[in-house]
């Protein structure tokens, strides 16, 4: 019997499933030692305060890329979704949909990476699920991850909290994840010395809330659709114009060159470890000082400000060439262009 690759029977609920869980999955993610210790649902102690709850599914090709992999991505993504609403994770789930024939060693590696990231961020994987599907149903591995978190007592975040004059902060250069993944994709004769920014930003959001509490008005991690999508959503949600300054946006020169090579827009490129925060203007300088002490945010910068209320709000970019233009919501997958 092939013991190195996933078979359909690994998802059948029998002995193979139990073995996979107890011998591969649990040791890798650092959960209980035996599958019989698992119950149908995890129980969490109910703390006092507000709970945050989030879910997301992760698909990425290739599964491993410079700076991360789908396991780390799934954990960071869920932690980050909790973090930007001001919550610290209490527990999270990992549900795996695995393609028949998937290499078990690779699965072990991906889950070890997920476990290490969860541990580093102080989050616990408390429940999960495993399904195996045939080769036509899935390309390798899909991970769904949910998380429950406790909201910081001083957090008062939301579109309605965003005011005219508030500063818009960005924790670092854009597009490192999107272009790093693309540089490893098969079929593109393109490569780049790029590492994904894939990281948990919980320590950034916690530090800001700890210091400024309700003076932090809004937070978001710009993932798919990049900064452009995040700001477009913010302006529509807050019903306010936003103005950002191109020359103040931290840039990674390799990302910039890669984007030019592929004909892509850096503002719309994906990130997995960046924070956009909106706070009272008076707090901005100190916030930058606090953020830039963290390695993942050492190039944090104020990139713009919130403008007046508007029924039809716009995000405007002051360009390096001295003009102004509107930043639109990206319209889905941008096909790399040559023309």
């Amino acid at each position, binding site marked *: 019997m092939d013991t190195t690759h996933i078979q359909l029977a690994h998802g059948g609920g029998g002995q193979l499933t139990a073995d996979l869980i107890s011998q591969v999955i649990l040791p890798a993610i650092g959960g209980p030692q035996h599958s019989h210790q698992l119950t149908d649902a995890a129980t969490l102690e109910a703390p006092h305060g507000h709970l945050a709850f989030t879910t997301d599914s992760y698909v990425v090709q290739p599964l491993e890329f410079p700076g991360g992999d789908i396991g780390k991505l799934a954990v960071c993504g869920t932690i980050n979704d909790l973090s930007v609403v001001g919550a610290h994770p209490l527990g999270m789930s990992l549900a795996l949909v695995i393609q028949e024939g998937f290499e078990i060693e690779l699965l072990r590696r991906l889950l070890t990476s997920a476990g290490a990231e969860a541990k580093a961020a102080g989050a616990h994987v408390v429940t999960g699920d495993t399904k195996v599907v045939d080769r036509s149903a899935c390309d390798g591995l899909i991970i769904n991850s949910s998380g429950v978190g406790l909201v910081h007592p001083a957090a008062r975040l939301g579109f309605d909290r965003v005011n005219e004059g508030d500063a818009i902060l960005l924790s670092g250069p854009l597009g490192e994840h999107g272009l790093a993944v693309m540089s490893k994709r098969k079929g593109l004769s393109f490569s780049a010395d790029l590492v994904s920014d894939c990281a948990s930003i919980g320590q950034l959001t916690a530090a800001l809330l700890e210091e400024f509490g309700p003076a932090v008005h809004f937070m978001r991690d710009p993932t798919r659709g990049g900064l452009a999508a995040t700001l477009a959503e913010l302006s529509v949600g807050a019903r306010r114009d936003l103005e950002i300054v191109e020359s103040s946006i931290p840039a990674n020169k390799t990302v910039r060159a890669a984007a030019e090579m592929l004909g892509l827009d850096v503002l719309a490129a994906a990130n997995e470890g960046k924070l956009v925060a909106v706070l009272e203007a008076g707090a901005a300088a100190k916030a930058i000082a606090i953020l*830039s002490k963290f390695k993942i945010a050492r190039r944090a910068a104020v990139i713009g400000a919130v403008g007046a209320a508007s029924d039809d709000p716009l995000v405007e970019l002051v360009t390096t060439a001295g003009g102004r233009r509107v930043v639109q919501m990206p319209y889905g997958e941008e096909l790399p*262009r040559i023309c």
Partner: protein
Amino acid sequence: MCLAIPAQIEKMEDKTATVVLAGSRTNVSLALVPEAKLGDWVLVHAGYALTILDPQEARETYELLAQIEVDEEEVKRASTAWTQEEKKT
């Protein structure tokens, strides 16, 4: 029409080359610029080098290159600031 970027020839093999711009690399054909040499700056479009660029002129002509240069300084500044902060804390 058509997207083209300046990049430097890093490796050559017969009529193809690897060109690099600020750590991003792509493979191009040198069939249209048979006189190209290792280290030359070329203008790349859709997998082909269209012409050889004067490196001085390349720097003066492309905003992209100017911005990438600035960026290097920024990185240096930012990382120095960071190390100083770390030392303090």
